[in-house]
């Protein structure tokens, strides 16, 4: 991993299109500004982790029975 030291207000450029700026430091919180092209996905890491965990949980729950029965139960309950 490349490790760089930056002061408040300073930036890091990644390639030609991505710029990361250190905006604010408050205790152990750091605010970071990111400029990236719209086609590039930028998300907090925990979003990916949550989705990964959700998928793994979804995969674990199979074999619960027929989807027809589940769908009927879901619909009837909502009436």
């Amino acid at each position, binding site marked *: 991993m490349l490790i760089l030291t930056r002061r408040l207000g300073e930036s890091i450029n990644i390639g030609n299109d991505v710029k990361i700026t250190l905006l604010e430091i408050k205790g152990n919180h750091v605010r970071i500004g990111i400029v990236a092209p*719209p*086609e*590039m*996905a930028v*998300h907090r890491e925990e*979003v*990916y982790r*949550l*989705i*990964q*965990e*959700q*998928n*793994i*949980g*979804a*995969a674990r*729950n*199979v*074999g*619960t029975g*027929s*989807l*027809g029965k*589940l*769908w009927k*139960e*879901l*619909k009837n*309950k*909502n009436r």
Partner: protein
Amino acid sequence: MLYPTKLFGEIAVEETNIIKVERGIFGFEQLKRYAVIAADPETPLFWLQSLEEPQLAFVIVNPFIIIDEYEPEIRPADLAELEIEDRADVIFMAIVTLRENYLETTANLRAPIIINRKNLQAKQVVLDDLTFQIQYNMIANISDEREAAEDCQKMKDELARISCSPVL
């Protein structure tokens, strides 16, 4: 070709019906080939069965049945990656999480699987729009009106078209 599965035994899947997820599904990145299985064609629920791991199958739902006007913004890069030229060619699927208490069944609307209906290349995308929930409660949002709506019926037909029937 025949593929072994845990839930349906051996299933026959035509090469042209294989869903190709080049980057895999988050958490299962190494698995890239799936089939949509209509085990119960009366419902908007389908199985997304891995053709490489017989144990792995997700329950997926037509998202239009649980939310109005599901038209999330999709990155041009994602559309390009799947060679989608027209947004009308996108098929949406949301992964369902079943729980012991079926009242808590949720669908992931934040990270839908999008499929190019023309070549069946697919990808699980993460939407920027935070209003779409990862754990969206299904039971509170099912309605006959939604089910009868045009976009919902259209997506139902699309999913049915790309799905295989298991021989049980």
